[in-house]
């Protein structure tokens, strides 16, 4: 299992994403790389931008596991409690001119991944995503 630790993370979303995408486990996901990239971008940006509103020493730990069947990525942060699975889904049937401008990231994660789980343990948000290969 690949383990990555990022700290501090303020303003570093793109660097963190780049490191994740260049791990052997992710980079070798040829068929599903685009989906994994899109979802990792949403999740990393969410943590960097919103997990630590009052701190600059926040961290993000990323664990990546890949076998012949699936790639699993687990993100852990010690920021404010946030369960993305409880976020109300955007109404994608509304006319475009009435849509919220944001709010699609979690929706995309749920559409693109085959399994998503969230836990809050020891003051950490632990979000696990899995994509079948």
């Amino acid at each position, binding site marked *: 299992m690949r383990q990555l630790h990022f700290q501090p993370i303020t303003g570093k*979303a*793109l660097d963190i*994403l780049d490191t994740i995408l260049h791990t052997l486990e992710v980079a070798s996901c040829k068929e599903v790389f*685009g989906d994994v*990239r*899109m979802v990792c*971008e*949403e999740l990393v*940006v969410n943590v960097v931008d919103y997990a630590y509103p009052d701190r600059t020493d926040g961290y993000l730990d990323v664990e990546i596991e890949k076998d012949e069947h699936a790639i699993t990525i687990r993100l852990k942060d010690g920021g404010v409690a946030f369960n993305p699975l409880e976020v109300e889904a955007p109404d*994608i*049937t509304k*006319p*475009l*001119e009435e*849509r*919220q*401008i*944001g709010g*699609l*990231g979690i*929706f*995309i994660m749920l*559409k693109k991944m085959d399994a998503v789980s969230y836990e809050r343990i020891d003051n950490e948000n632990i979000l696990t995503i899995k994509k079948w290969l």
Partner: protein
Amino acid sequence: MENQFELAQEGTILTIKLGEELATANATALMEEIKNYCETGVEKVVFDATRLNYIASSGIRAIIYAKRKLGGNPAIEFVNCAQSIRDVLKMVGIEGYITFASK
């Protein structure tokens, strides 16, 4: 990464020539640029997606921003849009509000 887009207005048409990606790295900058064209009589926004091969939710946000913030509820057109990009637009329910053209 450079911002990877160019904007040009000709009459009532605002053309946005996109680069290879529209994502976190450049979508906010694009929205800032679009803001400069608010209330200038834009009736149609043409996204030239000839080079575009990756879009994230931040990029989709920029498209919705153009529709909602330019004023006048402009039409949205995508030119030379790859199927993979079109699939994302369909997934988030905005494909039906966009016309697609090949040039």
